[in-house]
């Protein structure tokens, strides 16, 4: 019985997160517009854009190779796979044993590499520029992520997201300062990974400051749609990740009967909404930083993560 | 006449004959023939059981070196037969050269075989005189310089050795019966009861005296120049044979003194001189421009290594030292063959003038490269085995000295590698009209490769008899 529930939950989760991605992006954009005093487009606008893009025939550069055509699918697939692993409303889904934080990072890296290669395929300056910046930033974001994972692994004894969520939910860890540091580090990584302000501006079209946009500059039609969708999925995934780890309340426990799911579902929607609000507020409050200040930003995140881990050592050493 | 005497007197008779042969071709052939006969006798001698005949004895310590000397003497004779016509000697010098060569060979055999310390001293003196005349053979000012330096320094050296010999006898005199004075065997027998102080005095003089001939720092000054002048074969036999004889003399003295518990331990002296030689040679190698001087300095380094091994003492270290002497003779004379051939081909023995041998003379170039690598202690030559053994033992017993030794070895190795790259690989330098016709080319190349093969064979598949002999020798010298 439990097996069936878990499979069901998994399927529900995938459908939910796939559907939620465009909406969440739309909501964030709408909230930002509101906060900056504009009316803003309808939250469903991203979905419409995707559908419109799907109907267009893509135009490829003459010397574009197979990579340009295959990369969008790889990126989207990696994003979907990663999103399928992050617990949303219930724990103990069918794929829960696979849901490893490092694996999620790896899948995201896969998408990132696919994007960078696609950017270099046409042999245009901007594509290469975006690719090199993207890979460089990632090089600094990765350590911060792993160090944050270190803190979680010490607390939960594993990097399996499901288990981590369970530990942070039940375990009487109380409020750990280390968790705060880890949270900050993870948020910074999430910002860099999703090309949000202050690292990158998702809405910019000023080439010299672009990172993500520069790589997809040559993409069009269904390819562009896939790129956009993968980006939306990443955002959703990160927010879901943060909520699952740091706001674990409301999640339906493993093997629980479907009626618990309703609670979990509502809690999840609330959490995501809250996070979207925070994100929008944050982004509309501050300005994008210069490209070569980004390392300092991520380096600070890394140091905070390390500090958290060290504090944890001290406390575990004392107790 | 026992073989032990035959092997000494045959070369001397040959010398007398060679002095009468004015024509190069015949003289060279006769030289090879005499050397071959000497080699044959040496092998026969090695097959016989150990024995003592009057002033000479054949034991585990000298037989391996006797055979080695005869072998190197033969290959050197072949090499000189192939290349001597390039030296442009008139018939007087041809006679002098070949006569002196055989005189030296006889003296070398005698010095190795001598049981009587006095006879050994006389033999080494004769060898010195012979080599001096050969070094001076070119009659250039530089040759005279080198020969004179060699002569004076070694003259003083052997004078000291004689004094040491006398004192040694004085030490043993009260215990010796009349007949066997100065016999090493007898000295070994009575050494434990000798007056320790007198033994110490004798050892100091013997060490400094024969150490001069072995080229140990600070008594080494004659060695590089002597190696750089004169015909190439002389450098080969100087490094390959004479140094061994001197080192063996030091070992015999060390054995006598070491046999006496009250006397000072001879080890530390050898350790100090050996380490000094290795370190000084290692840095001095970096400043050399002249190929043969360079390898002369490398001889100093290797003698230092051997001295270090004997200073360390004990069966393992002594075995390493003996192996090192054998390996060094083979590798160094091989290198000198290669360098000599290269100097002919390039018309100069400056390192900067010898370049790109691999491209211009592949066989020679690679042979020389392998030989130099072997000299640097890389496998599969015998030197690799001996250095491995020595460093392993030293690291266990005197870690800090082993570290210093290894440091010296690394620096020297780097220098050798640099020269190897420069001479064998670098850009090819213009060649002189140095091509040897017909059989000469082969005869000039064969000794090099033969030595490499023998050194490799000894390193990995040494005949059991020889190995046992060396092990016993290592025990003998304590």
């Amino acid at each position: 019985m439990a097996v069936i529930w878990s499979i069901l939950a998994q399927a529900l989760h995938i459908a939910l997160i796939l559907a939620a991605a465009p909406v969440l992006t739309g909501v964030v954009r709408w909230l930002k517009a509101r906060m900056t005093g504009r009316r803003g487009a309808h939250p469903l606008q991203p979905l419409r854009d995707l559908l419109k893009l799907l109907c267009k025939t893509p135009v490829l550069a003459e010397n574009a190779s197979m990579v340009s055509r295959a990369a969008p699918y790889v990126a989207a697939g990696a994003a979907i796979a990663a999103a399928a692993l992050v617990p949303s409303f219930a724990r103990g889904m069918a794929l829960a044993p696979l849901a490893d934080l490092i694996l999620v990072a790896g899948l995201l890296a896969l998408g990132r590499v696919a994007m960078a290669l696609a950017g270099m395929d046409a042999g245009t300056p901007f594509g290469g520029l975006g690719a090199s910046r993207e890979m460089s930033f990632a090089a600094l974001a990765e350590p911060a992520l792993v160090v944050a994972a270190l803190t979680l692994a010490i607390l939960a004894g594993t990097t399996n997201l499901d288990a981590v969520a369970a530990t942070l939910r039940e375990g009487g860890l109380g409020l750990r300062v280390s968790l705060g540091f880890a949270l900050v580090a993870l948020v910074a990584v999430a910002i860099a990974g999703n090309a949000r302000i202050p690292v990158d501006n998702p809405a910019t079209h000023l080439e010299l400051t672009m990172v993500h946009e520069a790589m997809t500059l040559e993409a069009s039609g269904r390819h562009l749609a896939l790129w956009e969708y993968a980006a939306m999925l990443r955002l959703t995934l990160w927010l879901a990740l943060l909520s699952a780890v740091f706001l674990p309340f409301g999640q339906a426990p493993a093997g629980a009967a479907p009626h618990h799911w309703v609670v979990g579902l509502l809690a999840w929607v609330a959490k995501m909404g809250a996070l979207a609000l925070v994100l929008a507020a944050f982004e509309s409050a501050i300005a994008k930083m210069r490209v070569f200040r980004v390392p300092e930003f991520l380096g600070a995140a890394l140091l905070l993560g390390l500090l958290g881990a060290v504090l944890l050592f001290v406390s575990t050493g004392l107790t | 006449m026992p073989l032990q005497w035959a092997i000494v007197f045959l070369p001397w008779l040959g010398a007398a004959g060679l002095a009468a042969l004015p024509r190069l071709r015949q003289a060279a052939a006769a030289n090879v023939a005499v050397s071959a006969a000497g080699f044959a006798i040496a092998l026969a001698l090695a097959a016989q059981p150990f024995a003592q005949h009057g002033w000479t004895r054949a034991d585990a310590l000298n037989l391996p070196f006797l055979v080695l000397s005869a072998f190197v003497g033969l290959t050197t004779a072949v090499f000189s037969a192939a290349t001597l016509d390039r030296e442009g000697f008139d018939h007087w010098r041809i006679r002098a050269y070949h006569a002196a060569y055989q005189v030296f060979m006889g003296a070398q055999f005698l010095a190795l075989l001598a049981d009587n310390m006095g006879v050994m001293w006389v033999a080494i003196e004769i060898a010195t005189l012979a080599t001096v005349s050969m070094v001076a053979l070119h009659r250039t000012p530089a040759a005279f310089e080198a020969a004179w330096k060699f002569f004076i320094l070694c003259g003083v050296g052997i004078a000291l050795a004689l004094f040491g010999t006398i004192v040694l006898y004085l030490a043993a005199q009260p215990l010796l019966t009349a007949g066997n004075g100065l016999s090493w065997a007898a000295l070994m027998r009575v050494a434990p009861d000798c007056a320790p102080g007198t033994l110490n005095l004798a050892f100091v003089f013997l060490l400094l005296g024969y150490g001069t001939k072995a080229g140990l720092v600070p008594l080494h000054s004659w060695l590089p120049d002597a190696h750089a002048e004169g015909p190439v074969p002389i450098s080969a036999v100087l490094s390959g044979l004479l140094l061994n004889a001197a080192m063996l003399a030091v070992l015999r003295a060390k054995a006598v003194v070491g046999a006496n518990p009250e006397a000072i331990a001879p080890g530390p002296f050898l350790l100090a001189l050996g380490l000094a030689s290795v370190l000084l040679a290692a840095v001095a190698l970096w400043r050399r421009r002249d190929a043969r001087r360079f390898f002369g300095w490398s001889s100093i380094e290797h003698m230092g290594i051997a001295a270090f091994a004997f200073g360390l003492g004990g069966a393992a270290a002594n075995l390493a030292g003996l192996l090192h002497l054998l390996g060094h003779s083979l590798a160094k004379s091989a290198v000198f063959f290669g360098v000599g051939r290269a100097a002919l081909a390039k018309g100069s023995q400056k390192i900067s003038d010898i370049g790109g041998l691999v491209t211009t003379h592949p066989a020679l170039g690679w042979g020389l490269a392998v030989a130099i690598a072997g000299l640097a202690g890389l496998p599969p030559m015998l030197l690799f085995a001996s250095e491995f053994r020595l460093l392993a033992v030293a690291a266990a017993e005197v870690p800090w000295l082993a570290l210093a030794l290894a440091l010296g070895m690394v620096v020297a190795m780097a220098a050798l590698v640099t020269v190897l790259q420069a001479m064998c690989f670098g850009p090819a330098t213009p060649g002189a009209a140095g091509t040897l016709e017909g059989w000469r080319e082969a005869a000039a190349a064969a000794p090099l490769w033969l030595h490499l093969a023998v050194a490799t064979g000894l390193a990995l598949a040494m005949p059991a008899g020889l190995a046992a002999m060396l092990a016993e020798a290592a025990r003998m010298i304590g």
Partner: protein
Amino acid sequence: MSFGQLGYDMAHLLGGGVLLLSFVLLYQRRIGAVINAFAMQGALLALAAAWAAHSQGVPGLYLTALLTLAAKGVLIPLALHATVRRLDLHRTVETALGIGPSLVAGVGLVALAILVVLPATEGARALAREDLALALSVVLLGMLMMITRRNAISQVIGLLSLENGLILAAIGVAGMPLVVELSAAALVLMIAVVAAVFAFQIRERFDTLDTASLDEHRGERR
């Protein structure tokens, strides 16, 4: 045979004479005088050898005495004089270390020799000990002369007197086998050195015969 007996005193006297002449060699300033002093030393050494032959009853030593006298007392000095004349070398000795200091150094070396030999040779015959001390002093003084004199001739003479010291030691040790042969061999070496002076035309001194000219020939100069 010990102190107070004729044999001992005689041998001791002769040995001391040889040592004294080493000092004279150090002291002399003119080459001719140096050579003469060396000749005297050789003669004295021959006398000592003869006396040893008599007192030890080793007839072979008479031969040594004869050889020494002929070579060191007569031939080599004559040859050296001839050299000086033929190659017209400087007639005065240039010293690297002044006469006075070298004499002082000589005395120090004698003291060192005695300090080393006497305790080292416990148990040996008194005469042998004395003789060895004297011989060692002569050897050391010879080397001192070699390195403190600048003329090739006086340097060669230093070597020769060093060898005198060896002979002195050899004859001092009673019953030394091969003593005649060894001394003869040493003599051959010395004669070869003197011959080399001719052969190599060693005009000036060891200083100029340094590696500088080797460098020119073999590109060792940088």
